[in-house]
């Protein structure tokens, strides 16, 4: 499948400060989460992808075309920047109409598109209100819907949920999923891991300007052989279970809490551990209330990779 976004040896620096370094990436249709702490290089990468910055080295292409100074590409690309910026003295409806007109819509078409876009994010009642009077969350919703205004094939969203209230977070995530289900591509960046996890399993982990890992969360986790897996079991019989595993060579540490009725194992062989657990539970008729893998998530993956670096 042709990649939607293709970066090769992409590097960008600001004077002595490195933004991104030697990034090579091919993104196919779907939702891709760009993840990293503050200052990792996510915004720099997205600015390169949206043509705001020129690479110092390497190249970046979208739909096979160079991005910088290629305005025609934005017929197919929508971008939602991170900054809380807006034009003073303009209302939401006029702003979106202007954006629609920049895509070639007639004045009537533009007003209609603006109306629908505002409805999409629940801002139709404040269309005539100045953007400066909107709350931060409302301005964020306005930006997201402005990026989707022209039904682009690629949507690039830089921290789209910043400042948005919990109800609208869910709604926007639904919108993004709906968008992707129509065969389009979304690149969404965040430093908040649960947000990304709720949208996609395809992630690109970025740290200090470099890509640490790329792909499915579970696959990345599986590749981290050097890090033991954690298994947490909540049961009334914590000491009995603990005693059955203590002598197992694949179990590295055992921690338990009487008050929480939890025992946490660290194992270097997850498959062997679960196999054994099944047999023990059946043999001893143990009551198990909950089994979880606390580190089988993005946070743990990220922590391991950052710590390794």
């Amino acid at each position: 499948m042709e990649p939607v976004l293709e970066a090769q040896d992409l590097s960008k620096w600001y004077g002595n400060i490195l933004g991104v370094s030697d990034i090579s990436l091919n993104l196919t249709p779907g939702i891709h989460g760009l993840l990293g702490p503050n200052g990792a290089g996510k915004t720099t990468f997205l600015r390169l992808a949206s043509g705001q910055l020129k690479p110092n080295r390497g190249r970046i292409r979208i739909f096979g075309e160079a991005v910088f100074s290629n305005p025609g590409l934005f017929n197919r690309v929508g971008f939602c920047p991170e900054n809380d910026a807006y034009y003073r003295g303009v209302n939401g409806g006029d702003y979106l109409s202007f954006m629609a007109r920049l895509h070639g819509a007639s004045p009537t078409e533009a007003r209609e598109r603006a109306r629908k876009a505002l409805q999409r994010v629940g801002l139709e009642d404040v269309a005539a209100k100045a953007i400066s009077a909107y709350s931060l969350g409302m301005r964020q919703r306005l930006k997201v819907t402005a990026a989707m205004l022209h039904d682009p094939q690629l949507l690039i969203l830089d921290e789209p949920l910043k400042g948005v209230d919990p109800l609208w977070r869910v709604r926007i995530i639904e919108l993004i999923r709906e968008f992707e289900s129509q065969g389009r591509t979304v690149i969404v960046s965040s430093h908040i891991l649960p947000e990304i996890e709720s949208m996609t399993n395809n992630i690109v982990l970025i740290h200090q300007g470099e890509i640490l890992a790329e792909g499915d969360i579970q696959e990345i986790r599986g590749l981290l052989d050097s890090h033991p897996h954690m298994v947490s079991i909540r049961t009334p019989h914590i000491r009995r279970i603990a005693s059955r595993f203590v002598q197992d060579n694949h179990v590295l540490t055992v921690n338990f809490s009487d008050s929480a009725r939890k025992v946490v194992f660290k194992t270097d062989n997850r498959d062997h551990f679960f196999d054994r657990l099944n047999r023990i539970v059946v043999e001893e008729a143990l009551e198990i209330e909950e089994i979880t893998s606390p580190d089988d998530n993005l946070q743990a993956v990220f922590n391991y990779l950052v710590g390794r670096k």
Partner: protein
Amino acid sequence: MPFMSSATVVFGFFARLSLRNRRTRLLLAAAFIPFVILLVFHLVAISGGGSRSGAVLFRQMAVPFLFQLYIPLMGLLGGSACVGDEIDQRTLVFLTTRPAGKASILLGKSAAQIVISLAIVILALAGSFALGLGSYVFSGEGMARLGKYLLAGALATMAYTSLFVLFGALLKKPVIAGIVFIFGWEYIVQFIPGSTQHLTISHYIKSLLPYKSSAGGFLMFQLEPSAAVHAVLVLLLLSGFFLALATRVFSSKEYVLSEPRI
């Protein structure tokens, strides 16, 4: 999107925005300072005070104020803001991530700024002229004279605004550079012998003004003024050249939005 279509859309949006802008209201008020002074003078003259006619006051106060100070500073403020405002407010990204070429964006914004500035200058000049010269305005000679002032004002507005659009696109500190140009270069060059005055915008503007003085001050010439047609052509060409260069620079440059432009 075709170049002229996107430039027109940008022009329309930013012209409407400028009309509601506080800065435009302040500039409009400042442009009428000579008008207000002339009005006060008339009131004082009616009540027995004052010693010079309104015409002299127009020539020696309104003209230097508008042409030497107001139009260049308005051009500086408005011209540098075409790019500067987008960077300071971090809204540049909203324009450059749409299928409108950067050249058409800058041209549209500059045109909006020039049109609004022209309207202000023409109103202020015409108002001050009418108040200063009274019924003379309605004579053929008066109309012709007013026409010359308006032409000079319009061309000065276009030339200075275009120059400072270029400064705004090119420089990190366009306002400082602009002040150095207006009060440094254009002032000092008057006293340098030779034809260096041809390297200023003010020389060509002065060449278009109906009243020329050799007695010193703003309208002083070290050189002979240029022919009117020549001055008009030069000012038009300069305006076009500065704008063309500005769009070229703006199209190829990258702007880091976190740095404010003063």
